[in-house]
């Protein structure tokens, strides 16, 4: 916390000399050694440290990959294959970078849900939360740019779909689109700028991470009770060794899971299509983004209706960006005075519903929107025909043979006929994603603002050390 007395005492002559010129050792000591940290932080609080490791891994492996990668549409795919086959340990470095992106997002989602559950975005930590949202946005941009670089089928067509979204913006959409692509389509010039920006953004993330840690160290950590530190002596322990060890243990466990993916399933989170070189004339049958962007993709596709002058495409884009924008407003949307959901019995249930909704949105994003989750009835065959006299009509059939016979008869008689599958009415992924999108926005825009005013919270503990000693409930009889 800011304002705590610096306990750093330079011992050697050289440390004293440096301390009076650039007190950098003092800054590190006060931030990461003798920094008073609430003594009740659980393992959900280790993901900040895990994320710092993830960023470092991505930057180190990325700089190395850039030594071998060629940002040119004729050579990019080949240069990635060369990294995988010929460059010494190239396969390892690329797998770490590729899996690292997924692990980075896995950790950031846990980190964000943790902040959501314990109310870490509330006063006095609003700026801390906003900086975190900016980091998340930069992460998504970086991941999107990086996914284009191998110049596989998903790289090209995924980039196409996303850049096309900007075309939905009225008036300025198309100029923005061609400005982003640097031409009429995603081409060599686009790949080159994406590579340049993909290299730049992680360093911007690192910059915002420094601000994020600064904004954390002004009010100090939140904690699972949501009760602020009152007595530094009783409520906190120094960051080192207590949390360096706890974070260190969590990082080791995390890296074991990381290594399992790197060595045993490096491609399980990716798409096979991206090992086919990009071809602008052939679109993969099923374009999906990487798993960590699927919930937003589902929200984009959930909007299939027009409202007034705005068409579905524009509304989908607004909903998708709105789903991220609403995170920035969260500190002012949640009206509850109680930070931690431990003491908010109703909000807690809506929170777990929100987590489930996000996971299910991911499932919807990965699936074909028209596919049935629960089918009601059998699919039928529909033959649409125009007979020789010019009359139009249609007939449905249960089986193929009579349908085909009917169609052929119509054609033989001089008419036109076509057969198509008529899907049975069903509860489709589209409907599920519409329900979940409604819940996603309702959680932020209705539930949190209203519930904060109406909910009766359970009693919070008087202080962190009371909670640690089990005194948050009315004092029970001593065990001994």
């Amino acid at each position, binding site marked *: 916390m800011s304002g705590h007395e610096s306990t750093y005492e330079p011992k050697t002559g050289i440390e004293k000399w440096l301390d009076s010129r650039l007190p950098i050792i003092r800054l590190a000591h006060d931030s990461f050694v003798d920094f008073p940290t609430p003594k009740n932080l659980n393992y959900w609080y280790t993901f900040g440290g895990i994320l710092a490791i993830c960023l470092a891994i991505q930057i180190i492996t990325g700089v190395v990959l850039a030594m071998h990668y060629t940002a040119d549409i004729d050579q990019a795919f080949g240069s990635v294959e060369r990294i995988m086959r010929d460059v010494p340990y190239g396969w390892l470095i690329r797998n770490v970078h590729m899996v690292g992106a997924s692990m980075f997002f896995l950790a950031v989602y846990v980190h964000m849900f943790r902040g959501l559950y314990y109310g870490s975005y509330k006063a006095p930590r609003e700026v801390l939360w906003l900086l975190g949202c900016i980091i998340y946005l930069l992460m998504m941009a970086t991941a999107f740019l990086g996914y284009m670089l191998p110049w596989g089928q998903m790289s090209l067509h995924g980039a196409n779909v996303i850049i096309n979204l900007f075309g939905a913006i009225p008036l300025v959409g198309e100029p923005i689109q061609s*400005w982003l692509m640097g031409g009429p389509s995603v*081409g060599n010039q686009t790949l080159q700028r994406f590579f340049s920006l993909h290299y730049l953004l992680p360093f911007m993330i690192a910059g915002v991470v420094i601000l994020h840690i600064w904004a954390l160290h002004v009010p100090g950590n939140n904690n699972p009770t949501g009760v602020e530190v009152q007595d530094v002596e009783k409520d906190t322990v120094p960051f080192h060794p207590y949390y360096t060890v706890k974070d260190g243990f969590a990082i080791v466990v995390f890296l074991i899971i990381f290594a399992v993916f790197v060595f045993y399933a490096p491609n399980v989170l990716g798409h096979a299509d991206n090992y086919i070189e990009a071809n602008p004339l052939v*679109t993969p*049958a099923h374009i999906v983004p990487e798993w960590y962007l699927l919930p937003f993709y589902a929200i984009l596709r959930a909007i299939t209706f027009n409202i007034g002058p705005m068409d579905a495409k524009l509304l989908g884009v607004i909903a998708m960006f709105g789903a991220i924008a609403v995170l920035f407003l969260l500190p002012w949307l949640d009206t509850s005075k109680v930070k931690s959901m431990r003491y908010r019995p109703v909000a807690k249930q809506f929170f777990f519903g929100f987590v489930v909704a996000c996971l299910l949105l991911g499932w919807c994003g990965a699936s074909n929107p028209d596919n049935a989750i629960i089918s009601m009835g059998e699919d039928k065959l529909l033959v649409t025909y125009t007979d020789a006299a010019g009359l139009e009509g249609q007939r449905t059939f249960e089986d193929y043979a009579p349908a085909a016979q009917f169609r052929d008869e119509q054609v033989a008689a001089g008419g036109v006929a076509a057969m198509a599958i008529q899907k049975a009415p069903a509860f489709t992924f589209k409907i599920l994603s519409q329900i979940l999108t409604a819940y996603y926005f309702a959680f932020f825009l209705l539930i949190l603002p209203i519930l904060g005013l109406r909910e009766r919270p359970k009693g919070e503990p008087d202080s962190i050390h009371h909670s640690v000693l089990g005194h948050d409930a009315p004092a029970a009889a001593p065990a001994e």
Partner: protein
Amino acid sequence: MSDSNTTAPEQVDEERRDFIHIAAIAATAGGAGLVAYPLVDQMNAAGDTKAASSLEVDISKIPLGGEIRVLIGGKPFFLRHRTPEEVAAAVNTDVAKLPDPETDEDRLVARSDGTYNPAILVTSGACTHLGCVPVGPAQGSVGDYGGWYCPCHGSHYDTSGRIRKGPAPTNLPVPEYEWVSPTLVKISL
């Protein structure tokens, strides 16, 4: 020397200072804008990219009932040699019922003598939904209306490239093109 000509050192002319502040900030902002302009504009299409924006295609090579696909500036275009049945299906469609009403003739370009060649249809090859490339006769699916089918989100186009079913909002756009000769069309972006 009179008193009115000398200003006491502790007295500050606030209005004069405000003016200097505003002028300095305005000049800096203007300068920053001038520097930013080329840095932003460099991302727009370069001269050679713009120059590669038209192509002449020999339509005599297209098999009947088939199509060829060309890339111009990286954008896909379809040139389809329609069978008389396909032309008839496109012409006989009730235009009023279409999501994006256009007659088949609206989607053709007249030759220099003012006549049309309805057998040859030239359209953009990017689905108007999110820009995927629809599949056609050579890829084994023509959709429910005999034209093209977009596998990404299920848009069906008819033999005139008009949207009939699915999420795409508009017909496949007809690019700017002209008949250079009876067998040669020049397509421009």
